[in-house]
């Protein structure tokens, strides 16, 4: 057994938890219980959980994107934070003011994403920048996730360039899942490999097949470690396939069967199960039990959030300002 076996087993359990949670969210959406949208990361659990599991909540920074349920769980987000935000509980971290994947606890190093892709790169860079100013940066890293489509934004470019200029320990994980909503890669960028961008920005680059569970754990942990050791920004590109639609309102019918049935289209949970069993890191029975435990825990989080009070528009403090003097003035 490898020396990091406990960590590997933990990452897989987080992936299972994420998958169960996402399937439950999808079901709640299709039962008319969740409004707005449900955006899943089916197929991206291995890289996402691998990244999250290498980070320390309260020390490091992790700014997930829309397909990072697994990474969120791995970074220590409670299942209740997920279900409360999706189901609009007034007790959740967003208190009904924002929903679904737009959740976070910034003071615990977990910024809440906005919809505008690429913007988290500079925000995480800023958090690291501040830690450096305060003399607290040593041994800490910041990480954020993006997709193939997000690499086309100006914010991605500006953010990564700024982090590179400042030589800050930023890990950027690009989940190259082949489609940005429905737009395929050949309409998104013209370089042969997204990894080539690392050269242009002057940052370290790493590549991994995102459906390969063990490779994902290894690559992400390595990249995070490089950043932690002062190696500056790390760009990790993972090739894989989004195994669901853009959101649960989308059945992804535009994804050709050829890709679905290629190596890209493998499910990292299936691959991981095989790898765990074949390397004797876990047994089939153990893994089945993890699934069962996950179902119970997820159901508990859903049940609790469902019973909780919804935000009350009559009690809502309708002000977006923090300063009491300004809040009290008419707008």
């Amino acid at each position, binding site marked *: 057994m490898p020396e990091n076996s406990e960590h590997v087993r933990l990452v897989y359990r987080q992936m299972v938890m994420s998958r169960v949670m996402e399937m*439950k969210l999808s079901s*709640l959406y*299709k*039962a*008319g219980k969740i409004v*707005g949208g449900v955006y899943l990361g089916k197929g991206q659990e291995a890289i996402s959980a691998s990244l999250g599991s290498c980070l320390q909540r309260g020390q490091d920074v992790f700014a997930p994107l829309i397909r990072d349920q697994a990474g969120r769980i791995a970074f220590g987000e409670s299942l209740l934070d997920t279900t409360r935000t999706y189901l609009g509980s007034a007790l959740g971290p967003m208190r009904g003011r924002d929903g679904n994947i737009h959740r976070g606890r910034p003071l615990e190093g977990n910024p809440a994403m906005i919809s505008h892709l690429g913007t988290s790169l500079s925000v995480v860079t800023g958090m690291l920048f501040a830690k450096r100013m305060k003399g607290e940066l040593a041994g800490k890293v910041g990480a954020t996730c993006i997709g193939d489509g997000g690499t086309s934004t100006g914010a991605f470019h500006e953010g990564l360039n700024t982090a590179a200029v400042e030589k800050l320990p930023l890990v950027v994980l690009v989940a190259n899942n082949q489609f940005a909503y429905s737009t395929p890669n050949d309409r998104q960028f013209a370089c042969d490999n997204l990894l080539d961008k690392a050269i242009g920005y002057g940052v370290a680059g790493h590549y991994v097949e995102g459906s390969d569970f063990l490779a994902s754990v290894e690559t992400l942990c390595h990249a995070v470690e490089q950043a932690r050791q002062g190696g500056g920004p790390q760009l990790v590109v993972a090739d894989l396939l989004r195994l669901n639609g853009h959101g*649960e309102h989308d059945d992804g019918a535009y994804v050709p069967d050829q890709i679905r049935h290629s190596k890209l289209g493998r499910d990292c949970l299936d691959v991981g199960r095989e790898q765990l069993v074949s390397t004797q890191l876990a047994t089939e029975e153990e893994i089945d039990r993890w699934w069962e435990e996950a179902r119970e825990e997820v159901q508990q989080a859903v049940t609790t959030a469902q019973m909780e009070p919804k935000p009350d528009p009559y009690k809502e403090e309708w002000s977006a300002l923090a300063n009491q003097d300004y809040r009290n003035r008419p707008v």
Partner: protein
Amino acid sequence: MPEVPILMPQLGESIAEAKVVRLLVSQGDRVVSDQEVIEVETNKATMGVTTLCSGVISRVMAEEEVSYAVGTILGYLEVTEEEIIRTGVGDHLSRPKNSDESASDTSAASDSNVHFATDSEYVEPTAIEPHVQGLPVPAGNSAQYISPRLRARMNELGLQGADISAIAGSGAGGRVTIEDLEYFLEYISEWPSTKASPMRMAVADAMRRSWTRPLATVGLPVYIDRLLDYRKQQMPKPSLTLYVLKAFTTALQENPESAGFLIGDKIVHPRAYDIGVAVQVDDGVLVPVIRNVNEKSIADLLDEYVALVDKARTRRVTSDLTQGGIATVTNFGTFGLKWGTPIPLPNETLILGMGAGTKQLIWSEEVESFLPVTEMDLVLTFDHRVVDGGGAGMLLNRVAELLQRPQDL
């Protein structure tokens, strides 16, 4: 056992409805949590509607090939109490008021919809029907309210509030709308009309301004035989009006507050006893003012009075001669009128009117016989905010009393 509804989900941010493609279960079927039970199709995708918990399909209301609004109840699941506690679906239990089986019935959906007040029968309105019923209207007599828009149109036409008094408003609280005004103007355009003279406009303006106050009129019959007898002895003979003017002034001097002006919470008293005399002229009335009446005797006043009245009749009275009065005397008796309710000038609060003298027979206890007397009605119009009926009556009685001793005036 409690029932949990199966809802049409919101399958996309802009999706309002979806079509049921296939029913995957039928009544009586046992289903588990998160099972797809109905296949639906939007313009974006085809997907399955799932159950929130396990149970038995107790009712299926949806039909294949029919579209339903987001939030519509497509069927019901019979669920055990334990399952409800396990899954936390309790807030779904509120049964719709009208859970009619009819597929097109959306009232059930709007009653029980968790997220939206949806109403699939709602059609985009082609025109908005404006209405004013129930709108808040200004406090007080709203018929007098003139909107800024109506006010602007009236200014354009040179109209005052009183000019539109003939219009029965159709707006909120009986308010005159601009449409009412235009309709009225068109209506009167076919009537014969003449151009009002500047004099007429001046009187109209004065009366309009005066009429903003709560004016009241009281009257008192006065026997004027002694006055007439005394007057006959004078040479030249002063006008009867002059005696009344003088008596009125004396009475006012004794009680100056009755000629006061109410401004805010102050009663502003007269500074000088300058009294006007109404003179009828062609197409109007002029009111020259006699200064300091209290300081002058009838004899002193005689020439001034005659000259002023003459100037007025010949329209040679200048504006300085008509300004600053505190009250006016008007002798409408000269037109044979016995009674009237004159209106004071807007800058005065009192006007004393004199009716025509008439011969009456009255019973005298003294001589036990009917005696002929000359009776004249004195009327006084006053601002009821400043003076009450009693005060006005006392003022009139004092004038009548003074007129009985004309030699003292």
